[in-house]
């Protein structure tokens, strides 16, 4: 599903990611690493937001940066909500529905995330938890086959976390779950550890990933 080959990304002469090779199938993959490890950069590269400096990313056989149609099948949720704060929740979702050319089937996700009561509220008037729920709805309304979640749990309250975890557990596509909280990611099938832009571990064992991470 996702094939990353010799991937490197440089920002102003500094490597954010260096020579990464991974292959992800229809499975749930957790990504760990300290701040500045390159986790968000990897997420943005797979989502087609950034262009690799060197190397190649293939999502279902296509480069996500070059092929807009493949981005339709990827949902990106980050710790930054990527919403228009001056617009209402409904206006935000409507805009994304239009650019993803979706006409129906989105009401279920809105109800499931518990945001149907705030649809007419401006995003700027919502709490951080609700903004994050809307952000999840924005990414999932297109019913993507690949979901990339970059530290989304931090701003969610207990109920929000529960809803998000239920959605994640039920999801049967490819999930890339970036987190600082190792306990939250135990449900994943595979684990990636990044450090200083380098791939330190990629495998099935949570414990090995935990040890590689070298948490004091």
């Amino acid at each position, binding site marked *: 599903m996702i094939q990353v080959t010799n991937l490197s990304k440089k920002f102003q002469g500094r490597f954010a990611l260096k020579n990464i090779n991974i292959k992800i199938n229809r499975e749930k993959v957790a990504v760990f690493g300290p701040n500045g490890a390159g986790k968000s950069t990897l997420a*943005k590269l797979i*989502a*087609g*937001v950034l262009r690799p400096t060197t190397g190649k990313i293939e999502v279902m056989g296509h480069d996500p940066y070059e092929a*807009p*149609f493949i*981005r*339709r099948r*990827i949902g*990106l949720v*980050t710790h*930054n909500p*990527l*919403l*228009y*704060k*001056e*617009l209402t929740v409904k*206006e935000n979702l409507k*805009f*994304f529905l*239009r*650019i*993803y*050319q979706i006409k129906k089937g989105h009401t279920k996700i809105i109800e499931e995330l518990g945001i149907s009561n705030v649809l007419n509220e401006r995003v700027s008037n919502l709490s951080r938890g609700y903004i994050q729920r809307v952000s999840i709805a*924005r990414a999932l309304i297109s019913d993507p086959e690949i979901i990339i979640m970059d530290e989304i749990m931090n701003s969610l309250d207990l109920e929000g976390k529960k809803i998000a975890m239920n959605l994640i557990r039920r999801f049967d596509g490819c999930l890339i779950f970036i987190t600082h909280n190792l306990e939250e990611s135990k449900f994943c099938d595979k684990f990636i550890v990044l450090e200083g832009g380098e791939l330190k571990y990629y495998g099935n064992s949570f414990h090995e990933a935990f040890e590689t991470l070298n948490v004091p």
Partner: protein
Amino acid sequence: MFLEVTKKDLKLEFKTKSTLCLMLLFGLSCAFLFSYVVGERELFLPLILLISIFTGIIGYSISFLREYDSETIDALKASPLTPQEIVMGKVFFNLFLMITVQFVLFPICFALFDVDGNFILCFLIFLVGNSSISLVITSLAPLSSKSKARELLIPILLFPVIFPSLVLTLKVSKAALAGFVDFVGLAIIAMYTVLILSISMLVSDHVV
């Protein structure tokens, strides 16, 4: 699809009214100040062109850079929109704002400077030139969007490129004021605008 970006920006603008108010405030201040201090009729067209450039830059700055500052550009880039569609959406939004501003500003300036001539023809021809200026500004401005000194870089990048549009708009508007339509001038404006837009579309993959 780019019209969805334009529609979204217009909706944002109608909610905040920040860009349009700023553009109008700047334009009206310049118009009143110059008409009071100088008041020369010959200054009418250069002044309104000058206002066009800066209102265009204000419009661009708020519409495009807002996406970068709030990182919503990442949501657009992660969507099925192409960089060309994102740029075109912004181009048409800025064009709409600039035309709206001119509908208010042009008649006021015309009256303030007590200009003699064919108002309607001059206004219509000026709108064509003004649209060219708006298109050139917005289509080239993303070039500076990734730079740290982008506010400084925009005018430096734009002025050499916008100069032909400015001179031609001045020329065709002057002719229109006297009651003539300079078709050759208009054709050159159109061709130049298409050329710059095409270049912008070709490089948008690398700059958005």
